[in-house]
């Protein structure tokens, strides 16, 4: 019998993500396992199966085994990675994130906590406040988690002694006070026995406050900041020409504020202005007139200005700040220390660019909240305040005003190695690259060479944004120009800019650019294929040093801008057609006097 669909109401329930953190072995997984078991949230089959496995292997059953699913975790009795489990409360659902307490897995703790809206910090009553109790408390504040409850666990081991509980509370409250964290409650708990987890603990009649479950139900869901100024980091620009779709859609997720059709908007850092024409939608009866914080949307513009990934769209009266120097607080997770003179990739929202440390202000050991004793580097698991200098300007905010556009991560080589928040946007500094070499050239300049050889020098950057196409196209053009007697040179950039140059070694990215400039100044038609997703942008190519008067054409297969120097080819065309199209547009640029 089918149900009456019109009267069926299935609102998905509110969901809050909660992370459980604390020192290793203070009982985080046990607490979560106990909570699941005592609220009947666990498949009885699974509970029975885990118990049977323990019996078979001669191990005592532990609630933690319900969470510590990985083989290595059960063998070692510790949590290695943050596990998420779904838990149904009275009022709403929870994602409980069980984060590892072992120092070696701090990056996993941070990954888990970065997804949470509230936290339970666990402390062993017997051991008291330990290194990671402090470190995790500090990191919660860095990660911007304001709702915190402290559970003092293993009360059964100290005879449910209120004096011990009070001492732990005093000590830890003091520490958290120094970093401006105010816990909503301190709760004495026995996770092993389930005391004050879901049900009240009979041996602790002196405690009248909330149980863990009650404290959880009191956490507030943070609302999306729809009433704040608009922040719309551009994620991509779509034009699905091939499928016969002429819309040019700027896609992204609104991280703050509200957007309306007809709004005047500005893109930063470029400062270009236009108006919102439509807010696009799929599988909707009508296009929406507004969109707000939290939504992933796409918009079209009244004027086709050039915007690209990494720009942030906002309203002109409430802009972001633009600079290339930032004062930040960060935590470092990389195996190699963060050092001055090394180049890192900074990612903020959809922006990605290169940076280096200009100055170390303070490096601290978060486990004790004291100075680390060194100020020329940040070692793994340390936190620091530093000034970062970016190669290109970035549009950003202060983290306490706009969470999403005020925090960033740093990538070292292939790996994310740190994360931080922006405290202050400093005045833009002089633009400096990581390598400061110069060279002088001879007196026979490019113009003379061009006149003698009968054609101009041109740089053609072929972007590998469609599998295999750019490389073979470049080869075909090289061959046909060579046959026609042109001076041509082809090379391929490798995406090596993210790899650290060793001290004394030339930065490879600069080396690649330098080669292009040198070849063009020698009169060559330079065909450079550029790998996709390398942090080589169009601007990089256009701003090649010493190439101010050499035309630099872009060849791409994805994208929307198509003009005299930016050629977007239709990938549906065959190789011959593509080649002919490039030659048709390239040949006029070669003519002397053009």
């Amino acid at each position, binding site marked *: 019998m*089918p*149900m009456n*669909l019109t009267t069926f109401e*299935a*609102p*998905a329930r*509110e*969901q809050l993500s909660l992370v459980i953190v604390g020192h290793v072995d203070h009982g985080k997984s046990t607490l979560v396992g106990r909570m699941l078991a005592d609220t009947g*949230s*666990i498949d009885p*089959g*699974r509970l029975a199966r885990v118990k049977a*496995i323990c019996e078979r292997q001669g191990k005592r059953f532990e609630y933690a085994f319900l*969470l510590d*699913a*990985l*083989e*290595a975790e059960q063998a070692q009795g510790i949590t*290695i*990675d943050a*596990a*998420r*489990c*779904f838990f149904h409360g009275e009022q709403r659902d929870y994602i409980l994130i069980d984060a590892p307490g072992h120092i070696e897995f701090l*990056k*996993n703790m*941070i*990954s888990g906590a*970065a997804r949470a809206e509230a936290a339970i910090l666990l402390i062993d009553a017997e051991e008291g406040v330990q290194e990671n109790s402090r470190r995790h408390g500090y990191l919660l504040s860095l990660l911007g988690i304001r709702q915190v409850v402290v559970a003092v666990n293993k009360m059964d081991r100290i005879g449910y002694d209120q004096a011990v509980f009070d001492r732990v509370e005093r000590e830890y409250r003091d520490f958290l006070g120094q970093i401006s964290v105010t816990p909503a409650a301190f709760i004495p708990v026995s996770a092993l026995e389930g005391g004050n987890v879901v049900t009240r603990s009979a041996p602790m009649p002196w405690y009248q406050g909330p149980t863990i479950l009650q404290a959880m139900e009191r956490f507030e869901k943070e609302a*999306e900041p729809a009433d704040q100024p608009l922040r719309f980091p551009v*994620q*991509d620009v*779509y034009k*699905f020409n091939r*499928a016969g*779709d002429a819309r040019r*859609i700027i*896609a992204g*997720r609104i991280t703050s504020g509200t957007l309306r059709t007809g709004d005047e908007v500005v893109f930063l850092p470029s400062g270009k202005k236009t108006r919102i024409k439509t807010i*696009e*939608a*799929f599988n909707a009866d009508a296009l929406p007139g507004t969109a707000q914080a*939290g*939504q*992933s949307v796409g918009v079209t513009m009244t004027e086709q200005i050039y915007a690209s990934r990494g720009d942030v769209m906002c309203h002109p009266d409430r802009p972001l700040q633009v600079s290339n120097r930032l004062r930040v607080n960060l935590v470092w997770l990389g195996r190699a220390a963060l050092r001055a003179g090394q180049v890192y990739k900074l990612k903020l929202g*959809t922006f990605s660019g290169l940076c280096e440390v200009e100055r170390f202000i303070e490096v601290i050991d978060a486990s004790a909240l004291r100075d680390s004793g060194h100020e020329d580097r940040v070692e793994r698991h340390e936190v620091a305040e530093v000034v970062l200098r970016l190669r290109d300007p970035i549009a950003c905010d202060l983290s306490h005003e706009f969470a*999403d556009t005020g925090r960033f*991560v740093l*990538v070292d*080589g*292939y*790996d*994310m190695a740190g*994360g931080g928040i922006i405290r202050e946007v400093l005045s833009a500094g002089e633009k400096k690259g990581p390598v400061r070499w110069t060279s002088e050239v001879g007196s026979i300049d490019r113009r003379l060479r061009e006149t003698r050889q009968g054609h101009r020098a041109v740089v053609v950057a072929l972007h590998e*944004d*469609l*599998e*295999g196409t750019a490389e073979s196209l470049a080869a075909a053009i090289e061959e046909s120009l060579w046959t026609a007697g042109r001076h041509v040179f082809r090379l391929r950039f490798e995406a090596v800019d*993210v790899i650290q140059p060793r001290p004394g070694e030339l930065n490879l990215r600069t080396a690649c650019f330098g080669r292009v400039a040198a070849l063009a100044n020698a009169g060559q038609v330079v065909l450079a294929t550029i790998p996709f*997703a390398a942090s080589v942008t169009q601007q990089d190519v256009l701003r090649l040093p010493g190439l101010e008067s050499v035309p630099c054409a872009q060849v791409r297969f994805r994208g929307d801008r198509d003009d005299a120097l930016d050629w977007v080819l239709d990938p549906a065309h065959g190789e011959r057609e593509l080649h002919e199209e490039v030659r048709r547009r390239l040949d006029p640029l070669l003519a002397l006097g053009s």
Partner: protein
Amino acid sequence: MEHLDKLEAQSIYILREAYANFKNLCMLWSIGKDSTVMLWLARKAFFGHVPFPLVHIDTHYKIPEMIRFRDQIALDWGLTMVIGQNEEALAAGMGPGRGRLTCCTALKTRALKQTLDGTGPRYRIQPDGSYAPDTDREPYTGVIVGARGDEEGSRSKERYFSPRTKENDWQLDDQPPELWNQFKTDFAPGTHIRIHPLLDWSEINIWEYIAREGMPITSLYYDTGSGRRYRSLGCAPCTGDVASTASNPFEIIEELRNTNIAERSGRAQDQEDPHALERLRRDGYM
């Protein structure tokens, strides 16, 4: 924002990040409910288009209705559908009779590995619905997968962007950090990244979304009169149906709200060993 809207917005964000960062990107489509929802989300993310191939590993033992549904949707939605299969193992007589985990390893894990790295056969759908050998043999460096965190223990520890080694291994004890929607998009040559847009979705959210969007899903999930239906789809010999009269998404939601039986309880390969699925996943199983 409602919870489903939040899940949708996050999944779309992840799909767009994948598209912006990976040149050779594909999406694994098992024809099951999760990856079909993921495919629907991709159409939302890209405004009706799906700008990368959909890859299906055909073990040859799939339920025939799954294949029919796949090809129908592929044509209706204009998908670039790519099929991979371990033809060598099938020719040598591989099947569940050789042992379930052996069969899974050969026809799923192995087939997937060689389809992704381009060493095995790939067939691409033609305008008339037939399949022809695919000329594109480039390895896929970004692979979008519909794994959900609540399915089983080891999946709850996944990242949204999760690196795999050359051998397809998942290095569980050394996963990259992931914070504030910044994902791992830099990777060494030869390795690839698995992308998980559905990590935060629960089984019930999937059905709530199917109901809300009115989107198509294979009829195997519904009771059509026999009093039985599938709750999780796999190969015909190893996937059991469950007793249920639910015949639409709304009835399934109602049923799920009143059960705590595990979703994969009908999947025989999970029962052989408590860490069976973790081992399969470490070796590259979805």
